[in-house]
């Protein structure tokens, strides 16, 4: 039954199998170099980082003062915008090493116009100008701020529509992207 006549066939069979396996391996490797799901994972991490930073900024510093984020919204002046920029920029870009990260942001907040219930948006601060080419994610935080003023420039707040100080709820929105 057994003899050694078919050794060449054995080698040929093995070689054919190897060639086919290698072909399949290369073809599959070529088509799935980049998994689309991976982009969502980095987006998710960036969004979580931004949300956490906003939560940190909305924590009260002491029993007597409000959170930094609430104070910034309540009294949006040029210095407050810079305070937001410094604090938020430090929070999202700090790493364990000495070198900072390269995450850019653009922050604004939305509020309701009391006159016609329309949405208005107010710019806070940005590390870069938005060009439209960024692959940005959005992190948001609700803030209840005590605002006063009639919305004229130079006022203590830019949310118009009332004269006595009033509590208003605004949505702070930050776009984050790596650059």
């Amino acid at each position, binding site marked *: 039954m057994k003899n050694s006549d*078919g050794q060449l066939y054995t080698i040929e069979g093995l070689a054919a*199998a190897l060639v086919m396996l290698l072909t399949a391996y290369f073809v599959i490797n070529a088509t799935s170099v980049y998994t689309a799901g*991976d982009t969502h994972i980095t987006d998710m991490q960036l969004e979580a980082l931004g949300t956490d930073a906003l939560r940190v900024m909305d924590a009260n510093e002491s029993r007597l003062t409000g959170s930094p984020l609430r104070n910034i919204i309540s009294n949006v002046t040029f210095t407050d915008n810079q305070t937001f920029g410094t604090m938020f920029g430090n929070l999202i870009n700090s790493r364990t090493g000495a070198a900072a990260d390269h995450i850019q942001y653009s922050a604004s907040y*939305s509020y309701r116009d009391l006159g016609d*219930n329309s949405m208005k948006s107010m710019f806070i601060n940005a590390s870069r100008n938005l060009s439209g080419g960024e692959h940005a994610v959005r992190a948001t935080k609700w803030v209840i701020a005590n605002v006063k003023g009639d919305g004229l420039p130079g006022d203590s707040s830019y949310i118009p529509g009332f004269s006595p100080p009033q509590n208003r709820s605004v949505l702070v929105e930050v776009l984050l992207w790596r650059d």
Partner: protein
Amino acid sequence: MAGLNDDAQWIVLMGFLVSFSFFFLALVINQSTVVGQTTAESVIEFPKNDIRDTREIMIRSWDLGNYNTVNYNTVKEDIKIISKSRKNAVVKFDDRIWGNDMHFHYPLYYNNGVTEYYENWTSL
């Protein structure tokens, strides 16, 4: 192999068998790309942070209702309208109810079309 003898046909057959089995294995592995994408998408679409944040602001706003009803109604309206236009979510929260269990109950509701959240928050 026409001119040769046909002693080793089963070896060639085995070669084909192994190759095809690996081919179908590769098909299975190929599906992992799709699986990874849908998983990551469903994770990012689940509004965990939105619900937590909205819940927090609703509970905080009830404190306003204890001493300033005008501000409370303004803030309530702010949350509802901003949530609809900027977060694509319908939120609803009613005034507190004094329950039979001697606690205040605050019903709150969140729906963004995909995920629905309802909570009956109870005061101390």
